[in-house]
């Protein structure tokens, strides 16, 4: 019995931290509709700032706490809201995800610049050295502080949200997002307060966690993922349930360690938060199809005709063949990487650009493809490419199936859970990548022609990309493509036309992951070997970010994004003084995205069209280059009240 109680106490302690982390997330989400992926990063920054003030500059603890939690963190939160989030109210999940992700990377970059990761840093615990015996274990004062703070925060938040005017205004969104959204975006003041509050909560969690975890930039940032599961239990709106969810997760983990036999424990423990997340997501009731469109400010990109795409494809292959014979092996490899990533991004153009579905697991499918190519049919066969494509497609269907009723954010999070799950269960399995964590992948022979040479392989890769690009465009011009666009623009309208969204979603997920798997076969073949590190979930996030920044709904965008990606190491090397350039760059890119949701390549099309118009003035019928009138949904009640 004492053992049970002991683990319960431990579970409560860790659970409270999950709850605290999750509460901050929920507060920002319910009041702005934006799931802040950078929540943990904010907490990390605040923990480091606190360290800087107390350990480095010698400030007294109480002063530093006030400075960080009551001044710096809220200011940061308000700043983020003012500069970025304000424009994003009602935006699609792909946009908000990308921008908050960019923030995350930018914050990591900033932290790396200010605090060299090479040095070990630690924060002393609160009331360090003191502990109390509870049942058969010792609980430190710091842990008691954590529990107390978490409970206090939960109580205070409830009072704040129910007893104050601002809190009630925030709650209006909680209780009925529909009604609140009918009234237009939350007034700026409410939004700023909520982001300030969220940031302060993040900072609080960070400062409490850091002494236990050590001041590790990446680790602190990522720990928030454990909080996602708790936030889901609360359906992202109920704080008491969120608290309960955090406790449940903490208890589950502690009791698992306390009771399970080691061989089961080793499989169960790492998967616990993920299973939690998945279970909660699946238990969610079918989400109502929401009516109420996003203010649509971006131009629809022009779709190339069949003739145009064939010509472009042929030209692309021609250029590729020339490059293959001219470039040095090192440069050829870099270019090859770029094209592989362009292909992966193309699969995202299909899934996210056309269909509006967000997948945070794209690299997982790439990994499945690489695995299939390396493992089956001797490791270097044309059949391996087919296997890679088919297997990844099936994996995509499996990933999508349980979550297919979900939409938007929830669907994105379930793909995240899938990616994490695959990472733990599949890629770490020694049958997949062996004990070295690496798998050799060979290049194929096709119809007797060997593509093992670097140049031949590169050309094959480019041909594949061209074919896929032509295929994707053809799809877009056809009925299926139209349905995807329709599904993205208004799932509600599609349903009222009798469209079964489930089947359509399943189809596009499978197709997209199949293409990712195809890219995976080339990914492996290009490098010769792949390792489990290559397909981590965070890779998928970064990929999504890059695609969005470059232009998520065009083949050109995919190509540009991929090439940029491939060039990054080269750029990085010529600027060795700024190791975190990539992070800062990604962050800035995301911010820029906030201004042009179509990405920077979206300007390319219209410019070309304008050029064409200049050269052929008689040409009519092209719709680019003209400023569209934004199709703003009229605020219904406000307008009609004039008729009273």
């Amino acid at each position, binding site marked *: 019995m004492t*053992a049970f109680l*002991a*683990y319960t106490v*431990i579970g409560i*302690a860790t659970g409270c931290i999950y709850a605290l982390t999750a509460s901050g997330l929920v507060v920002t989400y319910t009041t702005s509709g934006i799931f802040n992926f950078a929540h943990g990063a904010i907490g990390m920054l605040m923990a480091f700032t606190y360290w800087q003030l107390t350990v480095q500059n010698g400030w007294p603890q109480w002063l530093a706490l006030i400075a960080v939690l009551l001044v710096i963190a809220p200011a940061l939160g308000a700043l983020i809201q003012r500069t970025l989030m304000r424009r994003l109210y009602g935006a699609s999940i792909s946009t908000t995800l990308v921008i908050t992700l960019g923030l995350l990377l930018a914050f990591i970059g900033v932290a790396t610049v200010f605090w*060299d*990761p*090479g040095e*070990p840093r*630690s924060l002393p615990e609160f009331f360090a050295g003191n*502990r109390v015996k509870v049942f*058969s*274990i*010792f609980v*430190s004062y710091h842990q008691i502080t954590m529990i107390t703070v978490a409970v206090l925060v939960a109580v205070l938040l409830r009072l704040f949200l129910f007893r104050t005017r601002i809190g009630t205004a925030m709650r209006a969104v909680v209780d009925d997002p529909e009604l609140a959204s009918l009234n237009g975006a939350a007034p700026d003041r409410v939004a700023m307060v909520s982001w300030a509050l969220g940031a302060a909560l993040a900072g609080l969690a960070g400062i409490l966690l850091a002494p*236990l*975890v*050590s001041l*590790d930039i*990446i*680790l602190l*940032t*990522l*720990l928030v*993922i*454990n909080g996602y599961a708790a936030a889901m239990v609360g359906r992202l709106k109920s704080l008491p349930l969120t608290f309960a969810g955090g406790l449940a997760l903490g208890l589950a983990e502690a009791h698992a360690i*306390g009771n399970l036999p*080691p061989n089961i*424990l*080793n499989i169960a*423990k*790492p998967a616990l938060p993920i299973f939690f997340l998945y279970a909660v997501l699946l238990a969610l009731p079918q989400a109502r199809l929401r009516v109420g469109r996003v203010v649509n400010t971006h131009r629809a990109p022009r779709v190339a005709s069949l003739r145009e795409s064939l010509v472009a494809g042929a030209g692309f292959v021609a250029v590729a063949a020339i490059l293959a014979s001219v470039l040095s*092996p*090192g440069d050829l*490899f*870099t270019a090859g*990487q770029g094209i592989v990533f362009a292909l992966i991004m193309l699969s995202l153009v299909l899934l996210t650009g056309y269909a509006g579905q967000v997948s945070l697991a794209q690299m997982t499918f790439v990994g499945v493809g690489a695995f299939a190519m390396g493992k089956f049919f001797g490791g270097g066969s044309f059949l391996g490419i087919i296997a890679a494509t088919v297997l990844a497609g099936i994996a995509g269907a499996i990933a999508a199936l349980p979550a297919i009723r979900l939409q938007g954010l929830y669907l994105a999070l379930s793909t995240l859970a899938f990616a994490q799950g695959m*990472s733990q269960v599949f890629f*770490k399995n*020694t049958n997949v*990548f*062996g*004990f*070295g*964590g690496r798998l050799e992948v060979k290049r194929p022979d096709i119809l007797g022609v060997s593509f093992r040479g670097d140049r031949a392989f590169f050309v094959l890769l480019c041909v594949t990309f061209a074919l896929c690009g032509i295929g994707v465009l053809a799809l877009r011009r056809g009925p299926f493509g139209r349905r995807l666009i329709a599904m993205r623009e208004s799932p509600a309208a599609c349903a009222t036309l009798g469209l079964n969204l489930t089947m359509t979603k399943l189809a596009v997920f499978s197709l997209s992951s199949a293409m990712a798997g195809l890219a995976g076969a080339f990914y492996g073949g290009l*490098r*010769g*070997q792949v*390792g*489990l*590190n*290559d397909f*981590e979930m*965070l*890779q998928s996030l970064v990929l999504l970010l890059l695609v969005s920044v470059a232009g998520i709904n065009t083949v050109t965008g995919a190509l540009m994004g991929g090439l940029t990606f491939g060039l990054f190491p080269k750029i*990085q*090397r010529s600027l060795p003084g700024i*190791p975190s350039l990539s*992070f800062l760059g*990604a962050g800035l890119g995301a911010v820029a995205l906030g201004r042009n949701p179509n990405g920077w390549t979206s300007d390319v099309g219209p410019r070309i069209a304008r050029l064409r118009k200049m050269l052929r003035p008689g040409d009519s019928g092209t719709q680019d280059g003209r400023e569209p009138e934004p199709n703003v949904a009229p605020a219904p009640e406000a307008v009609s009240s004039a008729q009273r």
Partner: protein
Amino acid sequence: MVLTTTACGARLTDQQLTAVRSGNSTGSGAAAGDGSTDTTLADALGTDATVPGSSGTGSGAGAGNTTATTSGSGNVKGTTTNVHAMPAGGNGGATDVGVSATTVTLGNVSTLTGPVPGLFAGATVGAQAAVAYENSLGGLFGRKFKLDARDDQFDTGQNRSQTIDLIGKALGFLGSFSLYDEAAADQIKQANLPDVSHALGEARLNIPNNFSIQASAKGGPLGPFNYLKQKYPDAIKAVGSIYSDIPSAVALHQGYKRAAVSVGYQYKYERGIGATETDFTSDVVRMRDLGVKLIYLTSVDDKTAARFAKAMKSQGFKPTAFVVNGSGYDADVLALAGDAAEGMLVTSSSSMYGGEDAGVIPEVALMDKWVNNVKPGFKSDIFTAYAWAGGRLLFQAMENVGPKLTRPAVNEAIRKIGVFDDFGLFAPSNPGTKAPAPCFIVLKVVGGKFTRFDSPPAAFRCADGPWFFG
């Protein structure tokens, strides 16, 4: 690909690292016997060389002018010429790739940037130090050495392209260190150039021309386990073990466990921990309640070791023995754990290269001196030591070859050197045959510092047991 390997990648790195460092193999294939003689050890290491049992006598020439020494490994030096000066009649000029009349270029591809900046920078520094030292003596046969160091940016593709590039420019590799070192293993094998780098990947390790200082092997060392058994005979019946859940670390743990079990250890609890785990209270409580007496951290990173020590302290749990394999010897562990690390034991197949042994092992002082020469204030780590030792081995081999420097000749010379311990810096092993070393020392944290414990002051314990290839 810098971007993409953030976060989880960084954490994984830490843990993969520990697999690396924990894989400082100890033990040999020969049967254990107490008071095993030099010849038994030599048999085990696959050479009939006399192996130095104590410090001070190296398996090759010492610094400075050579004398005609027979290290017993067939390296015969017939003359007493100054090996550093240009011989009369020239040195043959460009005798192979990367060689000219005045310079020899050596290559190094290590992970320097990435999610964890400066990850294996120690390797590059160590190589540079060895090169600087040799150059300070005048080089060899009128040629000075140049290190072409590259960064693979934690990326397989980069590693491959950099390695391939260097194959065309350097005589051989010195001190390369990367998690992706298998990326161009096939090319290295094909070029048959000397690759004196500690290999992490199996494919890299297995090529005939890779000469790893302290190659790793399947199974585990019986030496340390026999030692612990003799010292804490009851505790070995109740072992609790923690390791990282990365496949290579898991494999390492399982090999070590098999070795331990073969001499009577009983494991009551073992868990593979994930990259983002930081709270071990539950594990400590569980182990305490299971009656665990010996805690063995097989393959964890320094931060985990520190956190674990702190968890034990906060719960007031003091097992009979708290042992960390390999990576435990790290100043960061002490810094992070504070007095929670007091009494911690570390079994290691390297001497205390961080400086504690500088007084008794001159090589430690020498390495420290030259590391500080090329990078003032740099804290040597295991990668530095590997690269430095690799340099010493390589230069000795090149010295033995003579002025007509070719890749195959250097390979042969390394093999002929046979057993190598870098003047006591490392436990002796055989880079040519890839036989893992059977020797180790025990360190204990006393008064916040690492000190030798139950180990000879300047040498290794070699008699406790062979390697268990199971």
